[in-house]
């Protein structure tokens, strides 16, 4: 899968959101065109949990309609791992139902704190996708 391009300003929005929500997990959607992100849609974590997230359907639908109005598409589903590495957990894999998106995770844990990692689900297995900051 092609790399995901994320502007620095949006990467910083993700970092800020992850810090602001810690120790709870924070989530959102990333939209854009042709693999280049141009909009971050913060989503409420209905679970308000330190190790789980569930997006709120009303917010998801509103974001998707906004993307449609703007001619963009959902490129990635993002969430934070406040206290663990930025890799797909078994739970992330189990609940990765949405096709043709990249699952982006940010960790607040050193040494790679604030780094983003992306994964595409290929036949049920996560494969890392490069994320390029632009």
């Amino acid at each position, binding site marked *: 899968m092609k790399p995901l391009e994320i502007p620095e300003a949006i990467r910083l929005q993700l970092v800020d959101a992850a810090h602001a929500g810690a120790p709870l997990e924070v989530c959102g959607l990333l939209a854009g065109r042709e693999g280049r992100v141009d909009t971050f849609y913060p989503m409420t974590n209905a679970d308000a949990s330190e190790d789980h997230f*569930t997006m709120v*359907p009303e917010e998801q639908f509103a974001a998707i309609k906004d993307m449609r109005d703007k001619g963009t598409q959902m490129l990635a589903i993002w969430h934070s791992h406040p206290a*663990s590495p930025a890799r797909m957990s078994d*739970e992330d894999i189990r609940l990765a139902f949405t096709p043709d998106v990249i699952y982006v995770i940010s960790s607040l844990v050193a040494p790679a704190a604030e780094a983003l990692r992306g994964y595409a689900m290929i036949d049920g297995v996560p494969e890392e996708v490069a994320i390029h900051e632009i």
Partner: protein
Amino acid sequence: MTITINAEATEIPDDTSVTELLKLHEVKMPEMVSIELNGEILERDKYESTQLSNGDSVELLYFMGGGAIGI
């Protein structure tokens, strides 16, 4: 009859329920789909009993969740 699914006009048979629509749409995990019907979230336990009508607008999204539990 004609409905829209995720803003695309789609022809479906008359008297199609939401559950049947998910089968027609080849949704692999229907129990993990959120549905908005004419702007209102449809509770999952209403999928079977809700009949679609000509002109209805349906939005489908997969459940989005996960987390570091068990990592």
